[in-house]
């Protein structure tokens, strides 16, 4: 009941988070129940059920990722709510439980809706085309759908509980900004991985290279590739993801070089300041979009083997969750910077100046997204070209 009381004070952002989590959970629950339905209809002895369940993993991870980022952003967005709950005697553990419970509840809502649809459709309503997907005509073991559907609130809630910031930041105190600088080992590791992976792949793609005697089959109708190409691509993508934060910080520093006017100074230093917070969600988004775009390009190419609607639905879900995670992080950053904005306005900075500084900052962040995502996509396309 307590949650529903809290929901009464919800604003659009909170409602959006709730609905988005529920919708994503409903889609993933659909994947899981379809895997169950196929497993029921398949004749005994076929081994595709595990593969189908593995297909649900990226989607499950995407929902967990969004739940984690949303849970982290929540206290900063609603400091007065956190302060009120703390004043009412809720300790750090209870606040963590409350936030995690809220996201788990949203996940449960979505998956229960899907389960109901699944059960109704199974009841001889769906046509014969859907029958094998739903396991129609085969008795449903009670524990199976419940276990699958309970997985979502569990993943969402756990991810959220782990991600909720530590106590001092919960209670509305001024949040200590994390150190701006990325350590040199991190930058060197990231750069080495990126360059090493890229060179490995380029070497394996050289025209004189012999065909791999043991090609790897890729899922979702993406064809075949070699282990060296896949390794090179994975290494370079990981390196590019690690490099995203340092690149943001570096570009910020470059932006404020020389004798910057207030706009360039605020944009550059601001970008360096948020590099650590923005880096990870941006890296995840760049990687996801790169993989999705490369796959779509392969699917729509002439002569490509057709795939079912499932990979497309999964691609859509992954993109949606990672974009939403970046948006949640942006609202968190914006909430944390509210006092800074107030100070700048009080000093007589015009809203137009602040807006244009923010625009410059986000444009440069977009460039970094293009650079790392572009590298991952280009190398991915190269890998699939073999």
């Amino acid at each position: 009941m307590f949650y529903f009381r809290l929901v009464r004070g919800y604003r659009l952002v909170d409602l959006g988070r709730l609905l988005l989590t529920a919708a994503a959970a409903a889609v993933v629950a659909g994947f899981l129940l379809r895997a169950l339905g196929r497993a029921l209809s398949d004749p005994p002895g076929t081994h595709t059920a595990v593969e189908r369940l593995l297909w649900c993993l990226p989607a499950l991870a995407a929902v967990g990722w969004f739940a984690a980022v949303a849970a982290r952003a929540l206290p900063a967005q609603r400091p007065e709510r956190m302060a009120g709950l703390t004043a009412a005697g809720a300790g750090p553990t209870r606040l963590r439980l409350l936030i995690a419970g809220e996201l788990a509840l949203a996940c449960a809502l979505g998956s229960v809706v899907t389960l109901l649809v699944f059960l109704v459709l199974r009841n001889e309503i769906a046509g014969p085309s859907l029958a094998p997907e739903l396991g129609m005509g085969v008795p449903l073991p009670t524990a199976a759908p419940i276990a699958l559907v309970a997985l979502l609130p569990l993943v969402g809630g756990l991810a959220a509980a782990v991600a909720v910031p530590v106590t001092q930041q919960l209670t509305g105190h001024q949040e200590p900004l994390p150190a701006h600088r990325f350590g040199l080992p991190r930058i060197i590791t990231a750069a080495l991985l990126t360059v090493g992976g890229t060179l490995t792949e380029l070497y394996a793609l050289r025209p004189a290279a012999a065909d791999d005697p043991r090609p790897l089959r890729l899922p979702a109708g993406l064809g075949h590739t070699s282990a060296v190409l896949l390794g090179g691509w994975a290494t370079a993508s990981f390196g590019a993801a690690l490099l995203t934060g340092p690149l943001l910080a570096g570009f910020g520093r470059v932006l404020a070089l020389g004798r910057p006017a207030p706009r360039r100074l605020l944009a550059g230093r601001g970008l360096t300041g948020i590099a650590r917070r923005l880096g990870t969600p941006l890296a995840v988004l760049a990687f996801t979009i790169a993989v999705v775009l490369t796959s779509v390009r392969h699917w729509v190419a002439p002569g490509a083997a057709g795939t079912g609607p499932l990979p497309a639905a999964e691609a859509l879900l992954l993109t949606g969750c990672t974009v939403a995670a970046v948006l949640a992080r942006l609202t968190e950053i914006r909430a944390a910077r509210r006092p800074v904005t107030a100070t700048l306005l009080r000093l007589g900075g015009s809203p137009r100046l602040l807006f244009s500084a923010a625009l410059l900052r986000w444009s440069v962040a977009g460039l970094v997204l293009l650079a790392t995502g572009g590298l991952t996509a280009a190398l991915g396309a190269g890998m699939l070209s073999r």
Partner: protein
Amino acid sequence: MSAAPPDNDVLWARGIVKAHDGNLALREVSIGIREGEVLAVTGTRGSGKSTLLGCLSAQLPVDSGEVWFNSSPVHTLSRAGREKLRRDRFGFVGSEPHLVPELTARENVALPLLLAGAGHKAAYRAAGEWLERLDVSDCAKHRPIELLQSQRQRIAVARALAPLPRVVFADDPTAPLHREARDQLLRILTSAARSHRLTLVLATHDPELAKYADRTVALVDGRTPAPATPVQRPAAAPAIASH
């Protein structure tokens, strides 16, 4: 109807009323601030000091009443007009330093000058000078998070004084400081105001600190109960003669 303000008042308010979410913070406050004086506004927490300073310094629009600066109305200004006034004529120190966290101390102090359109070189030179005057020049290249609260507060004072505004508003600037640092900060602030002929409006809940002012106005529940009384000493006397 509006009467013209007295000539020697740089800032002048009559009958200003201001409410926050329906709670009346100021009930018909009238006040006149003379050019170059140090005026203390005293009162307990919630007496309306901060709101009064906000209204006088063109941060908050008044609900009714009038505010005049230099014989021109402030209460009728647009938001852009108030921004320009704050940028070009007013300085502000709050009870928290409110520095921009990602900028160094020197960049923080230079920022209002840059916002007002000063050249890069001039802005940074002035910032360096003011940091030196406030005895925090060794913090120039550090970001606020690396500094002590007392150092941050001095940097905030330097930021308010560097553009040489006509009026400096200080809203309980010593709230986060120890007694020693408190006296030092107020001495620097008042002596800088006097030597540069700035007008200083100092809000404080500590009646003891009113000794740094030429004149004191007490606020009680958003009202000024008694007419402001001048302190029995000449305004021109250097307050820091003993230091």
